[in-house]
């Protein structure tokens, strides 16, 4: 299993996402957004791939403005 990253539009939205990730019990780490994943907010939330469904639920619950999910695949972050 690999790691995933959730990228949101703004810092505000990323911090709001943290609350909903916590509520859905998704263990995550705020990380600097890897280069090439859009120039919006500089932080992103990193979590284990097996948490992806719960992460999607958090996004839906919070009505979060998600930019994209990415999976670390073959040495690069691939959009999913």
């Amino acid at each position, binding site marked *: 299993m690999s790691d995933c990253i959730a990228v949101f539009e703004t*810092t*505000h939205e990323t*911090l709001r996402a943290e609350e909903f990730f916590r509520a859905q019990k998704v263990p995550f780490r705020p990380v*600097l957004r890897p280069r090439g994943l859009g*120039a919006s907010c500089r*932080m992103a939330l990193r979590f284990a791939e097996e948490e992806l469904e719960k992460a999607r639920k958090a996004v839906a619950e919070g009505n979060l403005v998600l930019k994209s999910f990415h999976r670390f695949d073959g040495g690069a972050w691939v959009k999913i």
Partner: protein
Amino acid sequence: MIYLDDASTSFPKPPSVHEAMLHALRDVGANPGRGGYASAREADRLLYETRSLAADFFGAADSSRVVFTPGCTYSLNMALKGLLKAGDHVVVCGRQHNAVVRPLAAVGPAVSNFDWDGRGQFDAKAFSRLLRPETKAVVVNHASNVDGLLFPLDELRDAANGVPLVIDCAQTAGVVEIRTGERDVVCAPGHKGLWGSAGVGILAFGKKIELEPVVVGGTGSFSEDAGAPPAYPDRLEPGTMNLPGIAALGAGMREVGAVGVANVFRKKMALALDACERLSKIRGVKIYWPADEARRVPLFSFTVEGLDPSEAADLLDRDHGIACRSGLHCALRAHVELGTFPVGTVRFAPGYFNVPGDVDAFAAAVGEIAKKR
């Protein structure tokens, strides 16, 4: 000194407000939205938490539509210039402050005034007759900073029939409960009833409102685009934010929240009623405050017959150590309506931290001044 100018800015501020400001300045330091290191993250969090608190405080459903500004004047400028252009039409209600009059004059929409002195019912039919197809906003002073006239927002919102409401809450934020409707633009100062420091204001708006930015610049986001970011709050928050001021505002809102807005109102109103009753017994003193208690906030104006208001305020200060503001209070039209133009009035504006003894001293001082005149 006895400070009775809460309508200008509140004083004193609770110690937690001083501490929050110092904490941001001394212990956080970093610029929110600009870095990924620990202190920048802490700055982000401070901003985020204060924004969420402000959203709760003003009943705003979407906290990304709550932005921090340099003050209520800036909030009003951002609201009016962000919504309107020349050729539009607006209806203006309540006794407007220059913070509304001047931005409207700068933008140049056609203006219809809905005058109402708080007597009798709000006349929704008469109001509706002013609405036109090109009416882009109804601008309302929630409460006058001159005579305390409180405008009935719910009735106005119904009568506006979907036209956005721009609400000047300079005198009501932290004093009267305010809920941001989906077509409302709420403009509030941080330094008056929210007990924060000067230099911070709030602009909260509903999901049916889109505001064009008046000022653009770096936001630390969407940096590849030359245009303003598409997403709130970044769209309306260019440049470095006043984090110490925002931290102080957060502490202020927590303090107000702990007391309860209704309790703040009650305490200030008791002081104002007491002062009004005593002043009304002094010969030559005239009070400007709506007769209907439901139509007023705890501040009022008064004049002393035969005495220029500035002279009266000067005597209060010099001989009695009492701080009251006098003159036109940046609200010309209010004085025209009240018949106090051009000299204006003296204003009694108690704060939550005033005590009944302050009213005793104030009433005795006005009595003395009126006798000597």
